[in-house]
């Protein structure tokens, strides 16, 4: 992991030159970090402002009064509370199921040979890079014909097909030695006992990657929640916010950015707790 240490080793030899360049380095990194976070700080600042105008310049940030007005409006009047509830519900249901499916299917794919295993792996890998937009029209028609448009089932079910977690766990189990499982089998433990008592407890690190990446994709999901819901009360936060911004009326930026801030808080928390797992997921091909 620490490739940067190599650069530092050589630098120590040229301490005099590197002191100046170290300043430059940290100055540059600070500037880039600021540029990277500034739009979000702006979002949060506007959301804690008052009135419907955008505070114009960062110079006015301090002078402009702080207020919870936009959050109060969102919670009392608008549908935003409902959007947030829907997002929480869908994520809360879909992600634990995704984790269980990934563990069970990943383990089966890693440890047993069955007819069609190769085909399934190849298809799943292909779906990692498949543009998901291809599925929109057929998913809409399938859910419509099943009478499931505008339901929580429509919001949750498509997430369960995601192949990333399964492929990731299959790979994860392949790197684990099967000895313990085989010993347990010789001792006469049933297949399900082996899975729950021996395999599942050591799956934590892998499942954390699956879980947090599943959380991000589910929480941020936009396309199928947009297409498979029709009434305002079934919108999730990203869909509700996006449609809110498109409304014919004058856009209430304060409220909109307050909603955006609400949608961002869980992402910040997940990021602070699981940054390493998020990076690992991205390096292993989790779609954003």
């Amino acid at each position, binding site marked *: 992991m*620490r*490739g*940067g*240490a190599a*650069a*530092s080793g*050589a630098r120590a030899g040229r301490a005099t030159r590197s002191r100046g360049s170290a300043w430059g380095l*940290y100055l540059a*990194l*600070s500037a*880039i*970090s600021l540029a990277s976070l500034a*739009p*979000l700080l*702006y*979002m949060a600042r506007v959301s804690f402002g008052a009135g419907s*105008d*955008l505070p*114009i*310049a960062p110079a006015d940030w301090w002078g402009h009064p702080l207020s919870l007005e936009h959050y109060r409006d969102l919670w009392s009047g608008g549908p935003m509370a409902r959007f947030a509830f829907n997002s929480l519900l869908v994520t809360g249901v879909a992600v634990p199921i995704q984790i269980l499916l990934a563990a*069970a*299917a990943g383990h*089966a794919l890693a440890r*047993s*040979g*069955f007819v069609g295993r190769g085909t*399934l792996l190849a*298809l799943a890998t292909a779906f990692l890079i498949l*543009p998901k*937009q291809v*599925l*929109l*029209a*057929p*998913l*809409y028609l*399938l859910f*419509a014909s099943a009478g499931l448009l505008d339901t929580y089932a429509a919001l949750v*079910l498509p997430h*369960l*097909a995601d*192949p990333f977690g*399964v492929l990731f766990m299959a790979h994860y189990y392949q790197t684990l030695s099967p000895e313990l499982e085989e010993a347990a*089998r010789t001792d006469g433990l049933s297949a399900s006992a082996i899975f729950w008592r021996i395999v599942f407890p050591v799956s934590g690190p892998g499942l954390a990657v699956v879980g947090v990446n599943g959380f*991000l994709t589910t929480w*941020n999901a936009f396309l199928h929640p947009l*297409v498979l819901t029709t009434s305002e009360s079934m919108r999730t936060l*990203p869909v509700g*916010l*996006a449609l809110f*911004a498109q409304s014919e009326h004058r856009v209430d930026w304060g409220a909109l950015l307050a909603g955006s801030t609400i949608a*961002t808080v869980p*992402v*910040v928390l*997940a990021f602070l707790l699981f*940054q390493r797992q998020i990076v690992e997921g*991205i*390096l*292993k091909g989790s779609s*954003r």
Partner: protein
Amino acid sequence: MKRGARPLGVLPWALAFFFFGVAPLAYALALSFLDYNPLRADRTVWVGLANYATALQSPSFWRALRTTAYFVVGTLPVTLTLAYAVASLLARARRAETFFRAAIFFPAALSMVVISLVFKSLYAEEGLLNGWLAAAGLSRIHWLLDPRLALPSIMIMDIWSSVGYYAILILAGRKTLPDDQLEAARLEGLSAWEVERRIVFPHLRPVLLFVVLLNTIRAFQIFIEVFVLTRGGPLESTLTLVYHLYDRAFYHFEMGYASALAFLLLILVGGLLVIQRYVLGERAREAR
């Protein structure tokens, strides 16, 4: 030997994957050969390749492809250069590397809806950017309303949102470079610049090509940005393939035509992947 484990564990996920992945894909292919409007299902006709022919003759299709091409040409060099520079700065940081990496990478975890909303507020007629211009005594710029500026405005947002993501990919590639190789180069008296050019850069070639490919594939799939910021306008100047597809499928209910567009997208992206295979061979996989 794969023996004794329970292949049944794969079933729950395999069912979900079949119903919400594989089957819709097959359904989309079938739809693409039909003239099908769910509101007039009785008038469904098999039209063979007519939907594809219509798409290939439609100005909107070509406009969408041209938009994508502009997008790639405009963003890729900038994104790639910045991501490379940011990754090499991060690789040199000894102190607070974790903080800088987190700050720079964070936008990659954010919802594209939230990013688009924040930039929409920045680009608004009364937004921050125009506020700054006014304060400097300059006239207002119609960032999203001017057909010549709308696409570049979206491109700037895309660059902001993806530099950190690609920087992390490139940084991970740098860290697979063996330390002793760098050390040997320095002992030979190569300058930092020569080390970068003769050792690091060639080592990163597969990762960089992968970033080029990923960025191009993502450009073909741009949707949320356009949905939130411009709805394809003004004057179709930001019409992308996926927005066109969405518009045909869900405003005009031309499911057959939209599915043909979807498969054209699939063919384009698949073609890019084949080219990648050809150019990179198996090295790209290792680099990930």
